[in-house]
């Protein structure tokens, strides 16, 4: 599933790294991104297009929890339920114990 996350981050040390780290750790790929510091250097406006096999909703909530994230908007590439259920059987396999 492909979706685009637009967010405004506080421009603190490590802000962008934290967002990228969380995307990787939660098993999402970035297909394109752009980020720009605002004029007063207080914020970063970032826009990331992301792909993954997992449902987007839990990821979005993890991003929203980040201290730096001021606001966040998501655009989905396709219609449908984007998170509350596993889209297919393969997803539940991911969460099997060892």
């Amino acid at each position: 599933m492909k979706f685009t996350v637009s967010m405004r981050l506080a421009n603190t040390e490590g802000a962008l790294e934290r967002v990228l780290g969380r995307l990787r750790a939660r098993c999402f790929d970035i297909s394109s991104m752009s980020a720009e510091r605002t004029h007063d250097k207080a914020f970063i406006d970032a826009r990331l297009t992301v792909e993954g096999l997992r449902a987007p909703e839990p990821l979005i909530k993890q991003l929203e929890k980040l201290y730096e994230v001021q606001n966040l908007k998501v655009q989905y590439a396709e219609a449908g339920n984007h998170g509350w259920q596993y889209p297919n059987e393969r997803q539940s396999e991911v969460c099997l114990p060892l």
Partner: protein
Amino acid sequence: MNGAQILIKALEAEGVDIVFGYPGGAIMPVYDALVGTSLRHILVRHEQAAALAADGYARASGKVGVCLATSGPGATNLITGIANAYLDSVPMVAITGQVSSTLMGTDAFQEVDIFGISMPIVKHNFIIRQTSEIASTIRAAFELARSGRPGPVLVDLPKDVVSAEYNDSVFEGGAVKHLPRPEARQLHIAKDLISASQQPLLYAGGGVRIARASQELRSFVEATGIPVVTTLQGLGAVPGDHPLNLGMLGMHGSKAANFAVQQCDLLICVGARFDDRVTGKLAEFAPNAKVIHLDADPAEIGKLRQVECAIMGDIKVGLNFLHVKPEIDFWVKRCLANKEKFIWDYNAPTEGVYAPRFIKEMSDKAPENTIVACDVGQHQMWVAQHYSFSYPHLHLTSGGLGTMGYGVPAAMGAKMACPEKTVVAVSGDGSILMNIQELATLKRYNIPIKIVLFDNKALGMVRQWQELFFAENYSEVDLSDNPDFVKVAEAFSIPAFRIERQDQVADAIDRMFEHEGPVLMHVLIDPKENVWPLVPPGKSNENMMEAKVKAI
């Protein structure tokens, strides 16, 4: 006032009384400023133990635990303890020294990028670049650590920043962001779901301890009459001997608890997160149940399981609102019949010590409000199954990360936090050697914890899995050449004794509790004993394996 003195003042303003740490090059200005202040510093003998002790301190007291280490290896040694706090949502502030700002990024002596290294396992972290920002950053760190879903926060302090002078700092401690009240609409939906349910079940997790919501949970159970299962972290949310408590669910849970989960039509999840050790095969977990999920962290809701009703925010408010009594007599009877049917059997055909029975006896004999800290492995599961906890903060266990070596440092931290309570560390022959150096700390400060060391001459849990799931191909689990643990303890000037027969158990437990000061009891147990029952990996919770015959 220099940066280090500002740091100490800021910690004092936060109400910190004890700091666990280990000095070194880059953190020396802070240690210099520490002398003569109200902060009590406990010198551990490995930084990992500083982090784990701060974790134990925080879990037992509900306050923020603080640990301190130098740059480089000091900081990296904290990592396991920080990750442990992260996975179990423990409020902690870890302070690390760093090389001077001008040297950062030059591969200087004892320089590591601890900010980057710790990023995935902290709630947040900071590098302080200006002396003027120390006081406000420490305040923000504590606020973050204790607010919402708690977690560890790391603060990295370059040496030049703590050495420089600044005189205009403002010290305001104790900031906390309160949780929002749950949405009224969701509460009403939940109330309707409970009224309409025929087989409801309460599934309580570590969030109950974190929110200190045991009383609210108990009132809810009394008002509704709904049976309860708890997770490892939720043990004690309702008293172990409460009639409606069906025990722990999940991989090593009780049969009554797992059967109830699989059959229920409404699962009320309070501060738990559908962890894989709890659910078994997720797709078949509580297959007939609608779910009401109460949690402080919105990211946990719907993460692994679709919910009918999400109650985000303060679980105390949520629980207090939901006092409705559904018509469930038949269901409760069935649950209680199962509880009776699958009651633990402590009769073992052996003269040796049967660990589950030992723990049951210890539970019966322990003074009220005894804190039990566990290491990780078979003994941890036996404690969870057979020790009856009256409150969740009396059970300190590394649930999310499963950190061997957690027990002794955590018990140490808990004893520092609650000197009036008896504190027991239950450990295994594998785990104890991961932080054995802390016996020196126990001796130095005369921290009177009781260590119960179960010795089955093996890495028991791994051995059990190799026996059951790897065709008895025992690989690197033999510990038959263990050191003489009694002599090891005595070398650290910790009194110790050994037992190996069941008939010695009662006296030994009395002796341990009566002993003043730290003591270690070495308990030899059967190497073949396994933890039962067990949900095999990838199976649903109905498929519990049991011992065919007890090991002799």
